[in-house]
């Protein structure tokens, strides 16, 4: 069981630094944002599983060679109040449980707080906006600052909001592109992905890769919305809309350049996409496989 623990630990380290760094630097992700987002999720899940598994197996290794035996022996020791249980394994198990609880609680808390914030904001939008005459479903806020955004959520909570300033600034096809982009975020429920990575980066603040992955996933989500918007918008209108909405803030402008450049660029070939999906499955099967070896 110790070898499995070591393997999981090593894999966790790989998934914590070099693998995500390589993925963040890769260019192909822009040509297949959906597949890339899947890969990111696989890395996050497998990484978490490996970390927790490594600690848990390290702890349980003192109680037996096979996982089922070790768990039985451990439970018996706890039930009998056995004081001869060595400290180190207990620490390992405790760390595993704490880490799992920490990750799950953070996810729960982030999700609940975000949902409440959105509902509150959404109620304000209802109170302060008027419907847009030719754009059913879009809400118009009477403010000169040119702004477009969406409020994600289930059912009535979700909304697309544009300001009067934006409607004044954009031509009709550009406005249509912006609305289609925001609607794509809602239809494809991107907030589930961004909230999860937000929670993950909050849980592991000492991992620089956590915030890097959050930014990467945020960009991929924008690219996904662009791709979806292109189903109902001319590429030229979307390009202009992105350029105008990006503004002059440097980070936004850099993202805008990436988004504009890739519109019309050839997508990733099928075999490459298949390879990425296979890699995702592979990454997830490593901790699963290592854990399975402890059963025999």
């Amino acid at each position, binding site marked *: 069981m110790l070898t499995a623990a070591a393997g999981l630990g090593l894999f966790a380290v790989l998934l914590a630094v070099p693998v995500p760094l390589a993925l963040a630097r890769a260019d192909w992700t822009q040509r297949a944002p959906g597949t890339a987002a899947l890969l990111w999720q696989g890395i996050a899940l497998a990484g978490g599983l490996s970390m927790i598994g490594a600690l848990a197996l390290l702890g349980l290794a003192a109680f037996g060679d096979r996982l089922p035996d070790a768990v039985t022996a451990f439970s018996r020791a706890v039930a009998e109040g056995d004081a001869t249980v060595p400290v180190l394994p207990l620490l390992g198990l405790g760390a595993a449980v704490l880490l799992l609880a920490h990750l799950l609680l953070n996810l729960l808390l982030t999700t609940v707080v*975000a949902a409440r*914030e*959105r509902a*509150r*904001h959404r*109620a*304000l*939008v*209802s*109170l*302060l906006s008027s419907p847009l005459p030719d754009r059913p479903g879009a809400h118009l*806020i*009477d*403010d000169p*600052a*040119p*702004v*477009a*955004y*969406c*409020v*994600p959520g289930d059912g009535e909570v979700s909304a697309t909001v544009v*300001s009067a*300033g*934006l409607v004044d*600034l954009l*031509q009709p096809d550009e406005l249509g592109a*912006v609305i289609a982009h*925001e609607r794509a*975020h809602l239809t494809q429920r*991107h*907030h589930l992905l*961004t909230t999860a990575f*937000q929670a993950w980066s*909050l849980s592991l603040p000492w991992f620089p890769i956590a915030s890097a992955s959050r930014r990467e996933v*945020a960009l991929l*989500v924008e690219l996904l919305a662009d791709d979806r918007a292109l189903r109902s918008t001319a*590429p*030229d209108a979307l*390009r*202009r809309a992105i*350029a*105008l*909405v*990006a*503004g*002059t*803030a440097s980070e*936004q402008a850099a993202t805008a350049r990436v988004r*504009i450049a890739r519109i019309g660029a050839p997508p990733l070939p099928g075999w490459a996409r298949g390879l990425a999906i296979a890699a995702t499955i592979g990454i997830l099967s490593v901790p699963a496989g290592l854990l399975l070896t402890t059963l025999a």
Partner: protein
Amino acid sequence: MATLGGLERAVMDLLWDSDGALSAYDLLERMPSDGSRQLAPTTVLTVLSRLEKKGFVARERASRPHRYTAIAPREAHVADLMHEVLDAAPDRAAVLARFLGQIPADEAEVIRRALRLDAGA
């Protein structure tokens, strides 16, 4: 307008558009009729109470019946909403937001022209 949210909206619109304080009965009188049903005074009072809790409405208890005013004009609330969207740290943003820099209209035209040239090239 049958939903509670719709009623809140209707009441706020009336309060924002009126010059002075209004009582629940004044509001009832001025409510746009949707023809189908009569609004009960208690419903209006419930809506006013909710709006008071949300910080939109102030109640004058000195007069009988109580009269109500909007605490701040509509623009102030809209500005607060915009601040929430524009100033929230990306970590805290509850919404997926796109912002615009303050691009003057002629600069927008320059950008458009440049992009058309690129697209045509």
